[in-house]
Structure formats: C-alpha cells, structure tokens
C-alpha cells in the first residue's frame, strides 16, 4: 500500500486530556478515506497536527513522504477544518483572493471559477458576515480546492448544508478522487454519507484506533440474520453460540449463502419460521460497536 500519510504512535495531550493516545495509522494514496469517531475521539486534533496548526506531544507522522509541518507539503494540501471563518469585512471573492495571495498564486487562480463551482457565483461580492453556515462551508471548500492540491482534508464538510448541497458536495468529493486523482480524507458524523463515498475508514475512539479497513469488509462483519420463529429456545438450542435471542427475535451470525440451508433445517426440526431477513451491514453498526462497546448483535437489532 502506497501511503500518503503514515502515522506512528502519535500522542497529543492538552493538559491532563489525551486527545490522541499513541495513534498509528496508514492512509493509502488515492480514493476517499473516512475518519470516524464520536466527539472528542481526536479527529480534529489529528487534522490540526497534519496541517501544522499544532505540534504532537510525541510520536511521528509523514505526509507525502515528508515530516510533519513541512511547508512545501502543506502547500499541496487543501483543507477545511470545521466551519471556516473569514474576516467579516471581506467579500467571498476577497476571501479567496486573500488566501490565493498567501499561497503565492494571486494571479494564477481564477477565483470566480471556483466560486461558480461551489455555487457562490451570485454571492461573490457579498460580505461574508451575512453568510449562512452552508455558504461558509461552500466558500471553505472553494478555498481548499482552488490551489489544485494533491491531498484534501475535510472536517465535517457537509455540516450545515441543505440536502441539495450535501448531494453536490458528495458528487464533488467522488469526482475529485476518481477523475482528478486527489486523495480525500474526510471526517464526518454522517455515517450513511461516509459509507456512500468512502473507500476505507478508520474509526477513532478516545484518541486510539478502534477499527480500520475497507468499508465493505467492515460492514460485512456486522450483518446478522434476523429470525422471527417459535419456539425461540429451540432455535437457540439448534444453532448454538452463533445465535443470540434479542427480544422476541433471534439474531444469527452466519454467512449469507448458508441462509436457505439453515431455514430448511429449522423447519425440519418443527420450528415455525415466520420471518427471516438480513439486518445491519452498515457503518452505524460498526461505529456503535467500536466506539460505545455495544455488541454488534444488539446494534443490528435496532437497525431495522
């Protein structure tokens, strides 16, 4: 795996609080990579370290083969950390021109093109003090993309956006990864959105890595066969440890291809099967299991 970011035992403490606690992680080049975790898991702290805003207490990381906070590397990263804020007296166009100047590309960047791309063409000359959160997010996205970076880091990119905006953002992120060859790393609490657009995810919990892998691999492990049958005790006795009674149903941890055989066997054993369906199989189940310690079976029971 060709890693765009390699993190080794990264720790960041704020007083007594450990925001990152010996985190090790490799993020591959290309595609969309999701960083998940509950509030306080260390996602924003990790991003801030990667962007040279704060320094780690200990540990190492390399970004595109260079040590942390290397200026030339940082210039190849586009980023949006939480909802961006701009000086209130600037217009949307001024805001991008200001950042383009700081980047040394005051004349090269066509800021109007980027304002149009994020749907802010009509608001180009409006002062940002009147912008909604969603408009600020769009402006932040334009600022992060206008320098045509190799790596884009987005923290809650759809926060405060309306459904059409979320849809546009999703398309834009996939487009960047698939057509422009940009590696996109994003953090989001919207698990369905992450499941739709990310190729791989890492789940952080209390500053540590709780789970990491391809979205399809992680979600497959949380699929359960939800059976409504009587008598439940007999079903449990037949299946054994692979089954768990939850309420008036039973969750069975088997492979999909074994479903028909199992039901046939239960019927032959005089079990009445009223309903059989697959539940779980999504990031929410993985997330709840990894961050809250909720057993996957219980999570799946609440998913339907």
């Amino acid at each position, binding site marked *: 795996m060709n890693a765009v970011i390699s993190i080794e035992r990264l720790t960041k403490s*704020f007083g007594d609080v450990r925001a990152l606690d010996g985190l090790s992680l490799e993020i591959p080049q290309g595609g969309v990579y999701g960083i998940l975790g509950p509030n306080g898991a260390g996602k924003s*702290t990790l991003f*801030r370290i990667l*962007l*040279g*805003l*704060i*320094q780690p207490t200990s540990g190492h990381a390399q970004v595109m083969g260079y040590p942390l906070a290397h*200026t030339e590397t*940082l*210039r190849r*990263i586009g*980023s949006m*950390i939480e909802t*961006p*804020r*701009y*000086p*209130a*007296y*600037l*217009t949307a166009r*001024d805001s991008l*021109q*200001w*950042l383009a*100047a*700081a*980047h*040394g590309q*005051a004349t090269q960047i066509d800021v109007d093109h980027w304002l149009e791309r994020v749907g802010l063409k009509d608001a180009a000359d409006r002062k940002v003090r009147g912008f909604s959160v969603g408009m600020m997010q769009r402006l*932040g996205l334009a*600022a992060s993309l206008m*320098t045509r970076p190799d790596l884009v880091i987005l923290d809650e990119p759809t926060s405060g956006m309306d459904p059409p905006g979320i849809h546009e953002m999703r398309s834009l992120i996939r487009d960047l990864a698939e057509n422009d060859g940009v590696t996109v790393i994003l953090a989001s609490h919207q698990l369905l959105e992450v499941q739709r657009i990310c190729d791989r995810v890492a789940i952080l919990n209390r500053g540590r890595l709780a789970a990491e892998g391809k979205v399809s691999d992680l979600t497959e492990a949380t699929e359960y066969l939800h059976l409504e049958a009587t008598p439940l005790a007999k079903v449990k006795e037949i299946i054994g440890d692979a089954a768990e009674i939850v309420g008036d149903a039973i969750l069975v941890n088997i492979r999909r291809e074994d479903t028909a055989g199992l039901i046939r066997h239960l019927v032959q054993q005089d079990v009445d099967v009223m309903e059989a369906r697959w539940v779980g199989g999504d990031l929410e189940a993985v997330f709840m299991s990894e961050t809250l310690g909720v057993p996957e079976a219980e999570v799946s029971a609440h998913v339907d």
Partner: protein
Amino acid sequence: MLIDAIRAELFRFSRNGTVWLWSLLVIPLGSAIVGIFARQFLMTSLQKAAASSPASLVIPKAAMNLGDVITDQTAQLAGINLLAFFLIAAATISASDYRWESWRLIRPRNSRRNLILGKGIAIAVIALVPLSLHLVCETFGRIISASLENRSIVIGFETKQAGATVLMFVVAWLRTLQVAALALLAGVATRSIFGGYVVPMAVSAGTFLLAGMLSGFGWDANQWRTLLLFPAKAHDVLQSALAGGPIPAATNVKAIIGLMFWLAAPTALAVWLFERQDLSKE
C-alpha cells in the same frame, strides 16, 4: 515566500475600511482641521485684543517658510496621538487571525516565520501612510492658515535641511515601528487584538512615567541605560540632533542602538513564540 505573506496581509488590510479610517486617517485629517481652526481662533482673538487696545498695536505678519514648516512637522510626527491611533492597525494586523480563527485557513499556505514576518513588514509599509498623510495635512493646514492670515509663503529648503528632514522622517518611522513591534509581540502572546493594543500603550505610558521619575535620580539622556531602557528618549535625542541640537555623536549612536533594540527584540520574540505556538484555539 515572504513576499506572498506580505501581499496577503496588505490585500486583506486594504479591505478593512473601518480600521483604515480610525487608524490611518482620523489623526492626520483631524489634527490638520483642528489646527486651522485653533490658529484662526487665536489670530482672531489677538486681532480683537489689538483693536480694543488704547495703544496702536500691530500684529506682525511674518512670511511663512514652507521648508521650516515641513522640518518642524517631521520632527514631531511620531506623537502620542498618531501612535495611539496607529496601534489600532498594528494590533489588528498582528492578532486578527486569532480573532477570526483564520490561522487554520492561512497557516498551511506559508511557513510560520513568513506569516508572522509578513505581518511585521506589512505594518511597516502601512505605517508610512499616516506619517506621510500627517505631514501633508499639517503642511496644507499651515498654508491655509497663512492664506487666511494674509501672510506670504516662501519656499526655502536647503539641501542639508532636506537631508535632515528625510532622516527625521525615518526616525519617526522607526519609533512608530518600535511601538508596533510591541503590538506584534503582545498580539501573538495574548492572541487578541485588544491585548495587542493595550500592552504597547501600557508599556509606552509606563516607560514615559519611569523615565520622568528616574531623570531626577541622575538618569540623563546621554547614558546607555537611559537610551536602552526608554525608546521614546532615544527618539527624542535623535530628533533633537537632526534639528541641530548639541548632541554628542556617541549619544546619537547609543540612541540608534536603543531604538533598534526595541524594534528588533520584540519582533524576534514574536517570531520565536509564534513558531512554537499551538493554533488549535485561535
């Protein structure tokens, strides 16, 4: 690159109309207008007094030498009013990225050293605006006053005087930057525009009072300790020397070193601090 950081700061500041007005325009324009009215009021009062006098008093109307006016005004450029209002701009530039939480937008685009030095140099460039404007407005104010008083105006400006006037302007500029350097350091250290404004004001007021107190204890303006500890004294010594005052050359050198020390030390400290600062809570 450093030039990019400077360009970005100047661009952003050019859009900040409120700070432009209060920090750069109010004092030069206001003091010129007030000066015209004050001189006119004084002249009218004198003329009334002369008219009601039993003796026939005549108020002399000497010609105004524009060269002398410019030199006098230049020597007084870095006054407390101009410095106090210019500090608004200096503090705003120094700490606005903490105020707007915009370090996270701009930090990845340039090195920390360039970004903070870019602010310092942008402040130095912008400082030329109120100083130049103040000089121009005061000169025009004097011309208007002379016209209202029916005084003739002559332009006498010898080469030596012109050279001294340019150096006076440079010294006034350095004094302005010295106070602004404190704003830069205080802005970074306190992460606030308010801190960037109040701390240099307090330091200036404190050193002014202390200098006055210590002068009674043998701290005269020729001594190293005085010129190194009190940059305002160093500025005054240099302006006096340029105006033709009997200041020993050695004292001038000490004054230059004192002024430069107060410019360089806070700037270096601000850079050192900023390069180590966490920008997580701007």
